[in-house]
């Protein structure tokens, strides 16, 4: 109970601080949503030039980008702030977090609670709903479960990538933008059917890192379409397992990082 009250206090302080600069807050809310709007619009712009990208029609591609956007925006709102870790490590703010009697990760996430990212989550799910509506999906109980589980699995997966990328700062303080290649890069990768990528690049991002299971495989399973790359039909339904595996790895990396952390001492 005491712990919950402490978290509520942290969250409440955040809420009051953002609402005291209302105009800035409003612009940030709109700007944040704009980033996701442009990601989705890019898909539409590209399809102006061609009827199919990587063997997929616009409707099918929107389902892929919708799953990716819903999962990414949710993960970015809930744990995206962890990428501020490199600043906390460099400036020594992390010390203050570690001496408090609460787990470090939830505290870090609440220290800068991104209320400004709420509207873009709504937009992500609107795109996903629109995609579900325009595609002719043959609804079965398994697919009904999948349409709920897939965006949540995508969120857990992206959240794990955020935590792993941020943990890099424990080993390499000046890692700078390297994490973005996997967080924002992962978002861009999953926004398109993986058939568009070259062979070794796809092998690395889609299968070795698991990004194919964020949006592409679930979209195929929902559409009832055979994978042109040869994975069996059930591959889309294992996306929650892939997400849980990623979360377990992220938890391990985070703990190893916290144990390794030495204060900058300044």
């Amino acid at each position: 109970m005491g712990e919950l009250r402490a978290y509520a206090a942290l969250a409440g302080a955040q809420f009051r601080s953002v609402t005291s600069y209302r105009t800035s807050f409003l612009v940030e809310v709109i700007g944040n949503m704009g980033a996701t709007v442009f990601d989705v619009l890019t898909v539409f712009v590209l399809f102006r030039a061609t009827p199919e990208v990587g063997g997929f029609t616009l409707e099918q591609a929107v389902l892929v980008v919708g799953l990716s956007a819903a999962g990414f925006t949710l993960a970015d709102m809930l744990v995206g702030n962890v990428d501020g870790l490199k600043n906390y490590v460099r400036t020594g703010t992390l010390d203050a977090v570690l001496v408090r009697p609460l787990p470090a990760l939830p505290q870090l996430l609440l220290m800068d609670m991104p209320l400004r990212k709420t509207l873009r989550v709504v937009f992500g799910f609107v795109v996903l709903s629109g995609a579900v509506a325009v595609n002719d999906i043959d609804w079965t109980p398994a697919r009904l479960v999948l349409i709920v589980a897939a965006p949540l699995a995508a969120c857990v997966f992206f959240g794990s990538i955020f935590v792993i990328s941020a943990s890099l700062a424990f080993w390499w303080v000046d890692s700078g933008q390297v994490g973005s290649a996997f967080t924002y890069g992962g978002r861009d990768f999953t926004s398109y059917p993986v058939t568009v990528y070259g062979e070794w690049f796809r092998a690395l991002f889609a299968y070795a890192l698991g990004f194919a299971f964020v949006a592409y495989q679930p979209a195929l399973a929902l559409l009832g379409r055979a994978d042109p790359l040869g994975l069996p039909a059930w591959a889309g339904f294992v996306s929650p397992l892939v997400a849980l595996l990623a979360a377990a790895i992220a938890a391990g990396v985070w703990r190893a990082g916290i144990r390794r952390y030495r204060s900058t001492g300044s």
Partner: protein
Amino acid sequence: MDRIDARVLTISRNGPFRGSAATFGALIGSGFRRYATYRQATIAGTFTNIVFGFLRCYVLLAVAEGAAGHSPAGYDAEQLATYVWVGQGLLSVIGIWGWTELADRIRTGDIAADLLRPVSPVTSYLAADLGRALHGMLTRFGPPLLAGALFFPLHTPTRWQTIPLFALSIVFAVMICFGCRYMVNASAYWLQDARGPLMLWTLGSGVLGGLYFPLRLLPPEVTLALTVATPLPSLLQTPLDVISERDGPALQAGLVGLQAIWVVLTLALAALVQRRAERRLVVQGG
């Protein structure tokens, strides 16, 4: 315009022009050295530029595969690959993102120290930014281009004037980008907190500058309106169209000419904004 020269009090026998040029050169050098100290960040940023290069290149090539005549918006596959990889190299040369220094200094009141200097802030920050761009050109431009050339067939320029035009276009793009960023940052003189304008700039400059997709994929009227009425396509789209030889020689040169107009306009506006701000400025802090 007499407020943005770099004249300093000097007791040397050199004329005022020599003095200004020496000051400007020294400021460029300091901008260069400042960024040369962040070696690990340079490596990290280059890695990320290359990953995004692969992502964008594969997607655009897939679009080209399905497009009529395999040339969406008039680019063939090699021109698209050139567009993407040169774009990834130029990204940190032009530097559309991440510069909040002026806004931060206005918010904290450190700007007072800049105003005491005998060189106008617009001039000194421009010089520092040219130094930053020079460092970017030497360290960040090559690696993505090399990665692109290793994995994709790129377009080799066929006209003699393409390379000089491209070089000129980069210099113009850096100056236009600086002028825009200066104005966005200078909004802090009025707002104290420039986060809102900075965010809108980050959003608009990436998409409308031509980073995410060539703007020529938009309806032609939209592209034309953006290019003529806003400086944004001059940031990346124009240098990339020049190097990929998307247009005939006349339009290629014309686009660089249009950039020149935007250089004059944005820098003059930045200087004007600075003068207006100085007239009403209340320095923050104690």
